[in-house]
Structure formats: structure tokens, C-alpha cells
């Protein structure tokens, strides 16, 4: 996301209403998408559903290379392309759809902080498990990531991706961590989220925000994705309020789409349960 483009986008966005043919692009959901990308994609879908903005999900093998920032998912709305949850939230805000309008300054600061917590710990942990744990990388991540491509491109792309993630882990000081320590971090992060959520319906009162969408995307994906071991999911299952939180969001925002089994064409208004 380039800044100039973004400023331009927000100006342009304000002028036009949300079109019916908005499309969200993500990697192939059955054979290609990885845990972390799936989580980010689900977070964006949940956010758009909370905003009652219709979007059609389109799976493309080269979604990562279509995205302007190199990260999935991205949405194609009118003549604009925006990637990742943060910029998408900005974009919808410019169009007059916002979930965090009702928060005061302190709450908004806390919301942003918790969103960074999820990005900083949960997302990084997912990347670590996918690419730095040898068994997961060899059995799941590399074969899935490279499934649309034929040899030798599949090998080149998969190892390139793995190398890139490992270098990133080096730079942020995660390379020295053991798998057990990473699980411990996930536990710590979930603990914090669970504490913050407490017995509330959503993180801030009764109205869902982008934080709820982000947490839902990650926790739900961790719970429903099969990895080489279910240690990660087990860690998350320990937090009962996060589990019921995920179920609630799934029921409120995704149920209708699931029942009709169409590709999430349906959407409902933000629920005020």
C-alpha cells in the first residue's frame, strides 16, 4: 500500500457508494491457502460482513502476486484495489462505513493496540509454525503453497517464501525461539485477549469492531485448520470465552451463507444482539 495511492483512494472512495460487484481475492481455499493467509482473509470477510458490505470471494492461484502489497487478501471495489485489513478499514471508513465510530479516544487506542498484539504475536506465531517448524513446512506449507505450479517452479517459489519468512524471523529475534516457546507466546496472547474480552459479547461493549473481526479470523482459523499436530489449537481451546466468542460471530454473521452453501454472497446487517 503506497501512501499517495492510499490518499488518492480515500478521496475517490468517498465519492462512490459501495458497488454490488466488489470482489475479495484470496489463494485457492481448498488446496493452496495457508493458515496465516486464511486467517487474514477470514478477518477481512468478517469485517465486511459486520459492515454489511457485500463482497464476492474469488480464489486465484496467483492472488499473492496480484495484490498491490504482495499480501493477501485484497479487495477489488469499483476501480480500486486495496489489500490487508488495516487499509481496507480506512477505505470503508472513507466510504462512510465504520465500526469504531462509537468508541472514545481511550477505547480506540486500546483497540489499535490489541490489533497490533494479534498481528505481532498471533500472526507471527502462525508464520513461524508454518515455515520454521520443519515438519509443518515440509508436510503442509511447501506442498500447499506450491500446489498450483509445476516442477521446478513449485520448489523455487516455496523455498523462496520459506527463506523470506525465516529471514524475517531472524530480524525480529524469533529465530532463536523453540516451537514450545512460540506456543507459549500464543498462549500469552490468547490469555491477554481472553482477559480483555471477559464476559462481554464483543471486545468493546455490544457492537463489533474491526478488532473483533481480526481476532475471529485468527482464532477461528487456528481452531479449524489441521496441522501436523494439534498443539496450536489445543492452546487456544483452553480459553472458553474466546471459543464462544468465535461461535457467536460465526452464527451471527456467517450462518446464512453457510446454510445456502453459496460462496458468501449473502450478508446481514451488523447484529445488535
Amino acid at each position, binding site marked *: 500500500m503506497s*501512501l499517495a495511492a492510499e490518499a488518492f483512494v480515500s478521496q475517490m472512495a468517498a465519492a462512490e457508494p459501495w458497488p454490488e460487484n466488489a470482489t475479495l481475492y484470496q489463494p485457492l481455499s481448498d488446496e493452496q491457502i495457508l493458515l496465516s493467509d486464511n486467517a487474514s482473509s477470514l478477518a477481512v470477510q468478517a469485517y465486511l460482513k459486520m459492515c454489511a458490505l457485500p463482497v464476492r470471494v474469488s480464489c486465484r492461484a496467483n492472488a499473492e502476486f496480484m495484490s498491490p502489497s504482495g499480501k493477501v487478501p485484497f479487495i477489488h471495489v469499483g476501480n480500486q484495489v486495496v489489500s490487508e485489513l488495516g487499509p481496507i478499514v480506512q477505505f470503508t471508513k472513507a466510504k462512510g462505513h465504520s465500526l469504531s465510530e462509537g468508541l472514545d479516544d*481511550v477505547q480506540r487506542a486500546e483497540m489499535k493496540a490489541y490489533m*497490533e*498484539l494479534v498481528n505481532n*504475536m498471533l500472526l507471527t506465531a502462525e508464520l513461524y509454525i508454518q515455515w520454521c517448524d520443519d515438519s509443518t513446512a515440509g508436510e503442509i506449507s511447501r506442498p500447499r503453497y506450491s500446489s498450483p505450479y509445476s516442477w521446478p517452479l513449485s520448489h523455487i517459489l516455496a523455498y523462496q517464501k520459506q527463506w523470506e519468512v525465516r529471514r524475517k524471523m531472524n530480524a525480529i529475534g524469533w529465530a532463536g525461539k523453540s516451537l514450545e516457546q512460540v506456543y507459549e507466546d500464543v498462549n500469552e496472547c490468547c*490469555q*491477554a485477549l481472553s482477559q480483555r474480552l*471477559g464476559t462481554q459479547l464483543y471486545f468493546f461493549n455490544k457492537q463489533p469492531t474491526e478488532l473483533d473481526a481480526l481476532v475471529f479470523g485468527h482464532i477461528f482459523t487456528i481452531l479449524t485448520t489441521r496441522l501436523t499436530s494439534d498443539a496450536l489449537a489445543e492452546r487456544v481451546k483452553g480459553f472458553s470465552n474466546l471459543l464462544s466468542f468465535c461461535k457467536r460471530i460465526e452464527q451471527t454473521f456467517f450462518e446464512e451463507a453457510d446454510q445456502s452453501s453459496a460462496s458468501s454472497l449473502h450478508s446481514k446487517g451488523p447484529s445488535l444482539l
Partner: protein
Amino acid sequence: MAAPLELYSWKGDWGLPSVDADCLTVLAYAKFAGAPLKVHKITNPWRSPTGTLPALKTGEEGSVSQPSKIIIHLRKQKYNADYDLSAKEGADTLAFVSLLEEKLLPALIYTLWVDAKNYVDVTRRWYAENIPFPLNFLLPSRMHNQQMERLRLVRGDPMLEPGEELEKELYRDAVECMTLLSQRLGSHKFFFGDSPSSLDAYVFGHLAPLLKIKLPNGKLEQHLSSLDNLRHFCTNILVLYFPTEVREPPTRKMSVFPEGGDFDNEPHKRRNQILSVLVSIGAMLGYAIMTGIVSIKHIRPQGAIESSVVVEEEEEEEEGEED
């Protein structure tokens, strides 16, 4: 009783107890928790037990280097500044530390290590002047490259080039982060009431360098100065917990430099000159010996008279030939 823990940290300047954000965080936390550390303020990271700064030398378990690990270690030793926090406040700490790392740290790295003017005029200059010879030629540019690499990887863009667009993007994030922190802090003395916690240490560590180090390109400092409560928060911690450093006058006039070329800004100018003269003399001598312009004869002491006779004979011969 165990030997006191030893902490290795970058030395301070500009009224800061240390010039490095991570070191500042650890120093502040240790003060907040009342941990009796023996602090070594050094300027040579190679003298630290881990090769990086900060580093905490612990008795049995070796040394730890990352600020979060040091804080965890201190916590295990019962030096816990977060003892009074509720579980929710503990969760908030984790969240805001993540916010700092994701939003403010990249901009801090950028402004100190990547922004060309700040790096040449202040950062490289400070490290080159303070790191002992000969590492001062090596380390500053190596640190620069490391930080650039780190920024690239954190942003996930391998082609990242320093430039206006990147700067704008990073600074926008940082400004937003500072505003959020300021809103969260409100009119409190510390983030969680009246006593400081680890979050205060992290915030202080990341903001104090921006506030105190006088940079030619000080956009972040301008914004920070406009947020009164955050500025007071930092100066307050400095006055309360690091009174000796604050009183110490700034050692150098870092803010304004004559508009000299790069050469004038080079530290240790005289020493470099002498060094280069020595090196060139060495090279010339070496060349002369190699090509035989000057030859060195090894003369054994016993044969000294003999050889001198030989030389005389040779001379005579030559004379004879001339005749």
C-alpha cells in the same frame, strides 16, 4: 547470596542514561522494579558477553540479550514492576508493547539510522566518536546495514528504498501511535496509575531518544513535543529515576554543524591522516624491498670482519676494472 546481576548497556548522552532504545527500556525497568544492577556503560558491543547490547549477565544461566527476556529474567528474580497490575492491565501492557513495536519502532529506526542527514550528522558521528578504535570504522556502517535490513524484513518489502514515500508512511504510523499513547495516558502520571510498570519502561525507552537526541530532521520530535502529557511523562521519569544523567550537561553541541563536506565530519581526522601516512610508507618500503631497490643483508656477527673484507675486495676489483 548470589553475585549482583551485571547489565551491559550503551553509554548515555544528551541527558539520557543510554542512547539506545532497548538499553533505556531495560534500565528504566530495573529502576522501576528496584533491581540492584551493576551497570556497565560501555561503547564497545564486543565487550558485552553476548556481543550485543543490552545484555544481562546472570550467574548460572549465561547471558540474556533481548529486552523482553531481560525483563522476564528480572521478574523471576522477584524484581517485578508489574506486581500490582490486574490481569486486564497485564493484557493491556502486552497490547501496547505490540503497538510500539509495530508502529513506532520502525520509524525510530528510520529516523536514527536511515534518514541520511540524521544518520551522517548525528548517529554515525556519535557511534564513530564513542566506539573505540579500530571498531569505530567498522561498526557504525554495519549497524546501519543491519537496521536497514531489519526495516526491510519487518515491512516485508525486499526492494524497500529509503525515500520520501517510505518516510511518510512510517512517520504517519508513528504519529498515530504517539497520539494513541497520549490518549491512553491521559492525565495520569504513569500508564497504570501512580506507580510505573513495564509498559512505562517500554514507552519511555522508545520516546525518550526521540525527545532528547537533537536531530537535524526532527519531524517526530516536533509531534512528540506537541503532546504535552507524553513529553512530561518522559522528562518526569528522567528527573525521578535518572537524576545524575539529567544534571550532566550535554557533552557536545550536536545540533548545529558548520556546513562542511563529509570530510570535515569524519571523526578522528588527525589520527586517520597519521594512519594513512604510516600505511603508505609501509607500502613504499615493501615495494622497494620486493623489487630490490633496497636490499637487506643478514650478516652474522662472526663473519662481520670477513664480509667487510670481501666488500673491500669487490671495491678494489671494480676500481681495477675501471683502470
